[in-house]
């Protein structure tokens, strides 16, 4: 069953509980989930809806790579990430990341790492649709802009 994959690109509505269930573990005391939703206003501009596209097999591979990277730092972590593609309306869930760890600090660190990495290396793109036009959105990293417009080499191994 495709939905049992821990790293998944889907056209279906994402069920948060299903993603959490994939990382629930007898030895985990903490689960952090990051849920990315479609926001109406970005820099004062009103979004009507978004369209997400992905290079699906590579995107799932890169999500799995993020899981592997997390397990280097936190060997006991379990990670699951589901990203939705297609047309999404305001407040719809675009991505759910779930990380379980024995202790809570690690779950926060790993979950934060995962969303930053998604915005660096996972081939998924969104197109914003406004009342007066539409545009493919480029790199939206809040904290690590790439002056070159490309991810750096060390990010891509």
């Amino acid at each position, binding site marked *: 069953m495709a939905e049992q994959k821990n790293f998944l690109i889907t056209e279906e509505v994402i069920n948060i509980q299903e993603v959490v269930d994939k990382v629930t573990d007898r030895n985990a005391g903490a689960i952090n989930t990051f849920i990315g939703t479609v926001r109406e206003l970005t820099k004062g501009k009103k979004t009507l809806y978004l369209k997400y596209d992905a290079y699906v097999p590579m995107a799932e591979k890169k999500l799995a790579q993020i899981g592997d990277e997390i397990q280097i730092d936190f060997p006991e972590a379990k990670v699951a990430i589901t990203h939705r593609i297609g047309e999404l309306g305001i407040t719809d869930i675009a991505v759910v990341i779930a990380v379980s760890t024995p202790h809570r600090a690690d779950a926060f660190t790993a979950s934060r790492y995962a969303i930053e990495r998604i915005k660096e290396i996972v081939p*998924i793109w969104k197109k914003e649709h406004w009342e007066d036009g539409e545009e493919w959105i480029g790199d*939206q990293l809040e904290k690590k802009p790439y002056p070159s417009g490309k991810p750096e080499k060390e990010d891509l191994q």
Partner: protein
Amino acid sequence: MIKVLLFAELEEKAGQREVEISAEEMKISDIRIYLLNKFPQLTVINTAMPAINEEYAEDEVKAKAGDNVAFIPPVSGG
């Protein structure tokens, strides 16, 4: 034959998601030039990261017949 995939803005500018190049092998940088020749409006390809068979690759690497080459515009998932 080398299969080339274009996504997001690249797909829109080219008007197609896939391009097939009849070649036994070809450097990524030459594929860029080939595409710019074929689609002069595809200037944004210079800000895209190349990938071969679903892994990021450098411009100097040669793609071979049967490989899937992709140009990945700056990503915006999440």
